[in-house]
């Protein structure tokens, strides 16, 4: 991109330390308007910690995070949220005692867009979130984040434990948000989901980016991705 406008999200040399051990080691990335970047990698590769440092859930130990060109590395979580950051946290982070409608109202007064996005939530609007199925919970969390109209959307493992049809619905809503102008950074365990939704796929292994490539290139030839992701095991199993 040659325009003078800064990218929506710019992460530089980000370091996150947990329990004395660096779990994210100098990660740098940029996400622009309407762009979807997917980070894939095995468990424990630092994907979640990276997202959490961007949204302020954990403190960054080094590097910087900028949103629309302004530095938010030390900003409070609420300030980041007001600047347009939305974060779908790992593990279906519904407020389980609150009903569907109440969950949505935490984020915005007007909840109608959520029901347009996922009509099945409307029938369950009075149901406590803990009684929803896993798929419905994930729809609720995604909708709750989206109705606040974030300009930068962070999503952590949207497909976790869900059936492929549900995952397609969720990724559909993410693509729609990106079309409307949001920059999306999502973390995935499943490469297939990442390839489906993303423009760019990065592979994170042990806190470091080992591969970053356009998704259409990787879709043509997924072997490089599999090798980076699963190491030797994938080669052997593929034989």
């Amino acid at each position, binding site marked *: 991109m040659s325009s003078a406008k800064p990218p929506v999200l710019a992460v530089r040399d980000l370091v996150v330390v*947990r329990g*004395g051990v660096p779990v994210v080691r100098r990660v740098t990335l940029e996400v622009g308007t309407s762009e979807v970047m997917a980070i894939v990698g*095995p*468990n424990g590769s630092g994907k979640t910690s990276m997202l959490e440092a961007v949204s302020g859930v954990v403190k960054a130990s080094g590097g910087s995070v900028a949103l629309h060109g302004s530095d938010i590395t030390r900003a409070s979580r609420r300030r980041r949220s007001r600047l347009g950051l939305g974060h779908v946290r790992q593990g279906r982070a519904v407020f389980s005692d609150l009903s569907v409608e109440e969950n949505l109202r935490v984020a915005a007064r007007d909840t109608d867009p959520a029901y347009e996005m996922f009509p099945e939530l409307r029938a369950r609007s009075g149901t406590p979130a803990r009684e929803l199925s896993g798929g419905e919970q994930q729809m609720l969390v995604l909708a709750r984040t989206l109705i606040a109209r974030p300009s930068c959307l962070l999503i952590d493992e949207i497909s976790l434990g869900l059936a*492929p049809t549900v995952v397609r619905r969720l990724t559909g809503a993410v693509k729609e948000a990106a079309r409307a102008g949001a920059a999306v950074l999502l973390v995935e*365990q499943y490469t297939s989901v990442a390839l489906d939704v993303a423009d760019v796929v990065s592979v994170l292994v042990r806190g470091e980016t080992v591969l970053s490539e356009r998704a259409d290139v990787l879709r043509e030839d997924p072997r490089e991705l599999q090798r980076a992701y*699963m190491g*030797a*095991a994938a080669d052997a*199993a593929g034989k």
Partner: protein
Amino acid sequence: MTRADARFVAVAILSGVAISYMSDFRIFLATGAIITAVIARSLGFLYADTRMVSLCQMSLAGVGGWTVGWLTLNTGVPVEVALLLGGVAAVPVGVVVGLPALRLRGVDFAVVTLGFAAAIQVAVFNRGFPGTRTNFTVPRPSAAVSEVRFLWLALVVAVLLELGLRLLRRRSVGIRWALVGKSERATAAAGHSVVVAKLTAFAASAFVAGTAGGLLAIQIGRLSARQLEPFDSLVVFALTAMAGSASALGAALAGVLSSWMPELLRLLGWSQDIGPMIFAVGAAQVLSQGGSGIAGQWLALAARFGRRRAERQPDRPDIGHCPPPSVRMSGLMVEDLAVDYGSVRAVDGVSAEVRPGEVVGLIGPNGAGKSSLVDAVTGYVPVSGGWVGLGPDPLMGMPAHRRIRSGLARTFQRERTPTNLAVGQFLAVAGRNRTSVSQRDWLLALFDLPAPVTAIAQLDSAERRRLELVAAFSSAPSVALVDEPAAGLTDEESGRLGSALRAVTEEWGVGILLIEHDLRLVRQVCQSLIVLDRGVVIAAGPTQQALADPRVMASYLGVEGESP
């Protein structure tokens, strides 16, 4: 007696000598400080070790004091013996108070102890202490009538209590307190009963507080209910938290602050009611720096000066072989096991077998039910159906710690090593004398861990995860269920871990059920695999064969259109 103990005794003696030169009134105050320090210590170690909050410590002291009064009034028991019996009498009371801790935790339990303090106040103390009506006072021991001599008696008792506490905390019973405070699950995984650990801690705390109460009764002749209000228990708790609950130094500081603050204000010519206000501001200031209190901050500062890096074992080019423990190994059988969480079936009819010396991999995507299966086998969650047995013996219906004692071992996805212990202490309680010192050291070397004296707090998280494995193997289990040991490791570390796991199975014949996402490690160590997806076994068999199964690749990579 360790060097630290000797240092403690020396400091106590020197303080006693210094105080002996003061006026009688100040000696009286100092004796009061010692008694308060002992009470502070009784609740401080309880909290620091087990994380149980007792807000009834003055009441337990009152039980001790009441008993001493009753015995000296109604029997011919010498007062020295009565003092001991006062501590003993507080023990059953303490155990009763501690019983709710088996179900209630955190604030719930703290408020229950405060309720107990209120109850014993109205039911016992308010009716008067023995001898109230006849104006009877508890006599001092004939050898300790003067203030100086009584100071020394109190000091000796306090020192003996502290040394006893230190002794217990070095032994299995006391190490288990620290373990249960860190995690109840880890306590059961070490093969120890959570019930026993909690109640022995509360009993010890009650004994110490009861003895202090006895001392107080002897010092002032007769206790009154006004000194033992539930409110006073609250105060002594806050005071201890501020001074530092984890050390004898903190307890001593709490004693000094409580007894000398009024004297200090008097010397300054300030009004007495400023004391609590200073305390309020001071406590808020100290605690905003963290929960370790003044003494904790001092000790941390001192430790920074004298910091020793974790002591590595000398280079070990050749780890060599190790004779297996003389324990009969048997295989784990799981048949048709089912686990439900509410309406969600997490494990659905899973059968598996792990033979001695065999490593079976348990793989599958997140949320497939792998950890639930381990929890069900080891007795951490109730099962809805199926059967689990070790060799010929069924394990069904046993609580978790007894299944571990039968020959299982387990580690957790989230590491739960007790950071307040040393490596050797942790291994001593986890090993339960089933392995020798040389076997323990072989395990430590095999998993590249530092010497047993190293504090676990000094280990990084990767080392702690390996330590958890060593703890599991140090009980010479028949089968160890190991949950994602390679999470977050580098390739090289993961490879070394694999070799170590293989060595344990080959040398000792331990069977391993290995949950792992790192497929490289799985291929390195597993003879066979069980692949779970959404609670169901979707493939099982020799490792290569199972990994090549298209359904396995599909479930891992989330490829759609999986074959039926």
